[in-house]
Every structure is written in C-alpha cells, then in structure tokens.
C-alpha cells in the first residue's frame, strides 16, 4: 500500500512538473506577444510585428507541448487519485470543467488563427486573436489555481451525507481569497519566465552580432517586463502569499522556514540545512528577528515553530520543502538584482553594449523555470500531509484499485515519452532561434507544394 501511494504521488508530481515547464512560458509569452503586437499596431513598426511573429513561432511549439502534456493532468485526478476525486469532485469538478469549457475551447480555436491566419485577418482582427489566446491561457491558469486553492484552503463546500464534499457557494469557492493571491503570484512567475526567455534570446543575438534591431526589441521588452514582474513577485504577491500561509497553514510556514522551535523574535534562516533528528538548522546564517517582522510586522512577535504542532501534522518531507522554498526565494531575489541593474543600464542607454550584462541575461533564462518549479513544490509539499487541507489526508486519496506495478508501468512510460518530447522541444526551439526573427517569416509562409512535390 505504502509503495502504491509513493508511485501515485510521483506519477502526478512528475507529469505536473514536466507539464508546467510549458504553460509558464505560454502564459508569459502570450502577454508579451500582445504587448509587441500592440506597439507594432500603434507605431506601425514592422520590427515589432516581426518580433511578434518570431515569438509566435516559439509560442506555437511551446503551446503544442503544453497541450499534449496537459491532457494527462486532467485524467490523472480520476486514474491515480480516484478516492480524492470521489471525495472532492462535487466541488473542484466545477473549475476543472470550466477550464475546458471556457479556456481550452477559446485557446484551441483561436490559436490557429493567431499562428496561421495573419494573412486572412485584418491587423486588428489578428491582434484580437492574439489577445484571445492570452485571455484563454490566463483564464486556464485561474481555474487551475482556484482548484489548487480549494485543496490548500477549502471554502464554499458542505459535507454531504455520504461524506463527500459538495458545492455550497459557487462564488465563495471561485473567489477563494487564497486563489486571488496565488494566481497573482503564479502569473508574475509566468511573466518572469517569458521575460527572461525573451531577454535571453535577444542577448544571444546581440552578443552574436546578428539581427540586432530585433534583438534590441527583445531585450528592451524583456527587461522592462522582467523588472516589473520580479518586483511584483516579491511585493505584494509573494508577501501576501506568505501571510496567508502564516495564517492558514502555520505548520507549513514553520517547516518552510526551518523553524523547529516557536519563539518570539524568530530569526530568518538564509542558508543552512534542516536537521530533523536534532530539531535544528545546521550551519545557519540567519537574520535575527527578521521572520517575526516579515510574518507579523513586529520584531518581537511570537512565531509558532514545528514543536507547536503534533508530529503527524508536519509536512512529510521537511528538507525538500525547506529547500524548495529557499531556492524559490533566493532566485526571486536574484531576479530582482539582475533586472534592477539591467534596467539601470537600459535607462542610461548602455545595456546593448554592456557585454558582461548581456552574458548574464543570456545565461539567466533557465532560472525562472527552476524558481517556478520550486514555488509549486513549496505549495504542494507544504500542504502535506493533507490532500485537501484539514479534510483529507494524502494517503486516503489515491486509487486503491491501481496497483504499484501498474502505476510504475505508466510512470515509466511517461518518463520515456516526455524525454523524447523534451529533446524535440529544445531541438525545434533552437532551430527557430538559429533561423532568426526574419528567416522564419518566410519558411512558414512560402511552403509551395508545387516545388516540393516529389
């Protein structure tokens, strides 16, 4: 039984983690493409249109992978977590069904028009198709966040006679306060990924001395967006998210921060290794009293430690939770630092020639992916041992009828397929980047069958 639980958790964790590598760029780029197209329309500047088209091509590859890896997510609630679905489906089925009805149809119908319909549509109609894709992808994000928010902080439900949860108030459920801040925080994270990727490609072109006109647009748009969203990521969204955890999941906060013993004037651990056996942080570098200040806005406030909670309610994997959280926060701080410097250079007009900074910007692209992944791991590991916070434990939610052996069979299958998908994605994206913002414009539109027919 124990091993089946582990397999089902790994199954969901692996497929969800891999899947989310794609939507974060989809959602981030969708926003930036709308911005590029808007500027292109207003200034009537072909460079912005070409930039939007180039990112549209990357978007297309990325979106396809988001779609094909997303479908398994919707199935796995039933296949791997059937007891959970039976328990909570009366509530979270709402948002999952709404995602299909409102977001997927919108995206899938209009994506084709956005990617391939530029010649058939007027410029304004084409802008509208890009905007619709943006709305669809962000809406999709909200429905998923609202679903997760219910698992983090269940509201708007009642317990039916058979023990299952059913919807009591649609608006309470959909407008869960947890969902609002989590959505804002998550979308800033997606925008950061989009901004860093765009900046990175622009920096790469500038360093290579190729397509410099377009590269400047990429770097400029990316740095401005990266600057704005990295700051919003910490304040107010990250701060408010932290407050919510403090208030509603105090044991999670203690585990994230590695606070084994509750105390007034609790320190903030910057670096150190949680030692569960001895209930302390090894090799700590701390800021005294800072945790009390951040959580309660008072230097002397008492913060509850793990010792205030019964052992069986502690998150199951404290070291991994602690590291996920610290990696997320550390990288988030690092993003602000990079973007503040880049913004300063941009403002002084020196960014495009500051090769050292362009190197940093080029190499920074993978880190938002790590930060977003670590953020989700913080949220989901932090919720443990609960599947629905306070209502259902994780060990009670998986599919009893699906054995560990069958679970491992499909987990390995997904690992194999996803490895191939990951390689294909990198390969095809690299080709688009290598072909540059202009070459690709042609290769898509002038595929004349007459010249190719064998």
């Amino acid at each position: 039984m124990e091993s089946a639980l582990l397999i089902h958790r790994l199954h969901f964790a692996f497929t969800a983690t891999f899947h989310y590598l794609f939507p974060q760029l989809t959602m981030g780029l969708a926003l930036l493409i709308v911005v590029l197209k808007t500027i292109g329309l207003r200034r009537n500047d072909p460079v912005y249109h070409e930039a939007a088209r180039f990112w549209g091509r990357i978007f297309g590859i990325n979106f396809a992978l988001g779609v094909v890896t997303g479908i398994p997510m919707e199935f796995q609630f039933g296949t791997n977590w059937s007891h959970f679905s039976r328990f909570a489906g009366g509530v979270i089925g709402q948002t999952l069904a709404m995602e299909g009805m409102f977001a997927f149809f919108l995206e899938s119908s209009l994506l084709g028009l956005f990617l391939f319909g530029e010649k058939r549509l007027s410029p304004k109609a084409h802008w509208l198709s890009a905007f619709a894709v943006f709305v669809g992808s962000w809406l999709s994000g909200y429905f998923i966040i609202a679903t997760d928010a219910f698992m983090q902080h269940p509201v708007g439900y009642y317990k039916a006679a058979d023990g299952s949860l059913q919807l009591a108030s649609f608006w309470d459920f959909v407008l869960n306060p947890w969902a609002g801040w989590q959505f804002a925080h998550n979308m800033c994270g997606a925008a950061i990924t989009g901004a860093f990727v765009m900046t990175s490609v622009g920096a790469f072109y500038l360093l290579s001395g190729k397509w410099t006109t377009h590269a400047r647009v990429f770097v400029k748009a990316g740095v401005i967006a990266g600057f704005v969203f990295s700051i919003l990521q910490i304040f107010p969204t990250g701060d408010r998210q932290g407050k919510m955890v403090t208030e509603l999941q105090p044991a999670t906060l203690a585990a994230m921060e590695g606070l084994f013993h509750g105390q007034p004037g609790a320190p903030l651990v910057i670096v150190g290794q949680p030692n569960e056996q001895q209930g302390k942080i090894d090799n700590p570098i701390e800021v005294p009293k800072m945790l009390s200040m951040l959580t309660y806005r008072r230097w002397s406030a008492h913060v509850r430690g793990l010792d205030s909670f019964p052992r069986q309610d502690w998150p199951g994997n404290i070291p991994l939770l602690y590291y996920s959280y610290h990696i997320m926060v550390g990288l988030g701080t690092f993003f602000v630092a990079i973007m503040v410097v880049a913004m300063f250079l941009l403002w002084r007009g020196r960014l495009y020639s500051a090769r050292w900074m362009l190197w940093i910007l080029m190499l920074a692209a993978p880190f938002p992916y790590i930060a977003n992944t670590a953020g989700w791991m913080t949220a989901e590991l932090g919720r443990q041992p609960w599947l629905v916070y306070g209502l259902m434990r994780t060990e009670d939610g998986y599919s009893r009828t699906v054995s560990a052996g069958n679970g491992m069979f499909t987990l390995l299958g997904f690992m194999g397929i996803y490895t191939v998908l990951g390689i294909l994605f990198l390969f095809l994206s690299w080709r688009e980047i290598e072909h540059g913002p202009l070459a690709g414009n042609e290769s898509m539109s002038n595929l004349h069958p007459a010249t190719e027919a064998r």
Partner: protein
Amino acid sequence: MASLWFWIIAAMITTYVVLDGFDLGAGAIYLIAAKTNGERRRVLRAIGPVWDGNEVWLLAAGGTLYFAFPQLYASSFSGFYLPLMIVLWLLILRGIGIEFRAHIENRIWQTFFDVVFSISSILLSVFFGAALGNVVRGVPLDSSGYFFEPLWTDFKLGPHTGILDWYTVLTGMLALVTLTAHGSYYVALKTDEDLGRRARGFALLCWPAQFFLTFSTLVATYFIRPEIMANYAKHKIGILVPIVVIASLAVMLWANPKGKEKLAFVASSLYITAMLAGAAFALYPVVLPARDHQYDLTIYNTAAGAHGLRVGLAWWTFAAVLVVGYFVFVYRMFRGKVQVEEGHY
C-alpha cells in the same frame, strides 16, 4: 437535473466522436491515400486548423463528467487505468505527429512523423471503440463502487473480463471502420484530384465492412445484454435509432460514388450520432453497468450535489453558446477545399 447532465455529456461525447473522428479517420487512411508530400500536406491542412479544437471536446466532456458525476469519473477512470493511459500516450503522439512534421523539410523526419500520426490515429479509433464496448458490456464493479480491468484476460465474457475480449475487439473494429470511412468522406470533401478520388475509394471499401460489423455488433450486444432492449420497448421514440442508422448507411452507399461528398459526410455523422445516442438510450439511467447488476453505477448514485449541478447549468450554457460561436467562425474561416499555397503543415 442528473438526467439532463447525462444527455449533455452524451451529446458532448458524440460531438467529440463526430469531429475528432474525421481527424482520426484521415490519419487512418493517411499513409496509403496520400502518397506524395504535397498530398500529405493537404490532408494535414484539411485537419490542421481544427484538430486541436476537436480534441478539446474530449477534454471538456471528461471535465464535465468529473463535475456532474464525480463518482462515475473516479470509478471509471481508475478502473480503465491502463487503456486510458495508453489513450493519453496515443493522443500525445497523434498531436506531435501533426504539429512537428512541417518544422523540418527532410524526408526522413517527415516520414517518421507521418507514421507516428497514422498509427496513433488507427490505435486511438480501436481503443475508443473498445472503450464503448466495455461500457455497454459492463465491468466488474463490486460493492466498493470500484473495479480494475487488465488489458486482456482470456478474451471471453467471464467474470474476470479484460478491456479487450472478443466483444470489445468487435466494437473496436467497428469504430475503426466507421471512423476510417468518416475521415475518408471528410478528406474527399476537403480535397480534390487524385487524393480526393482515393479517399472516396477508401470510403467505398469501408462500406461493406461497416455494414457487416454494425449488424454483427448489434446482434452480439443483444445476446450478451438482452436488457438493453428495455428502454426501446418502453419508449417509442427509440425506433428512430435503427431508422437513422439504416437510412444513413444507405445514403452513404448512394452518395459516395455519385461524388456527393458533403451528403456522404453528413450521413456518416448522423450514423455516428445515432449509434452513440442509441447506446446512451439503451443504458440510461445506468452510466456504467456492472457485471453484477446490483453494483451498477447510475445517474442517481454518482451525481454531484443538486446545488452544484444547478449552478453548473448556468455557466455551461453560457460557455456552450461561446463554443458554438468559435466553431462556426473557425470552420467558416477554413471552409471549402484546402488551398494549396498557404498555411502551415
């Protein structure tokens, strides 16, 4: 209220099969009917702008099923664990087969994705048919409301059935032939010249097999589950199902050689609709029959709470109107025969 959701979901699944069915059918004939690179690209362009939207009907139907009948979703998705996972893999392969082919102008690359696309389409058709066969035949549910079926056991209809037995293989074959014909009519409708002719030829070849399998499946169904006739005996309206099935088969046979592709395609869509509606009509109010009838899952013992279902109807109706709008718009945008000189794929 639960009855209404039963029919909504049945309608969504039917829409999925009618729409994505022609994508799958086009995939099934793709390797043989479309011989040159130009022809293959025309088939892909015929389905390219719409396949993803069509596939969403499956997701939306699944999501709606989850929302309206959580217990059914929990039992059936975990019970059909292995075939669903295989369907997921095939959907992934089908999607990348269509989308990634055009990125590189290299025959080896393109042939690889051609084969991926076609084989995954064929297997998906068979699995969907077998899935429906499982639902009609009944599954080994017990008092817990759960079951688990291996992919196959001994191919007999004993107490320990697998996903595949002789009956579900039969329904799988019927689905393959039906969707191959359906896709052929669609390709014939959207293309011309040699490709259109070959697609019509394929449909012609499918017809006798479709005719024979339709009747053998119906007869087999009657013998293994005589109780499916109960609703037909009770409600006169059920007579429409066989009438539409026979009429649409006749129209297909007549219209296709005459070059009336549109009529043949409409008839094929009606055939699919009637067959699925007939199955839903026979099952109602059961949603997943057990081998042992006392454990049947019905709309009454699997539905979500009444308030949730009522609220859902409001947003579902609103969303459905939008969806119809998108589909009308997109299909109008890409109407007519495939233009050879523009578009991706």
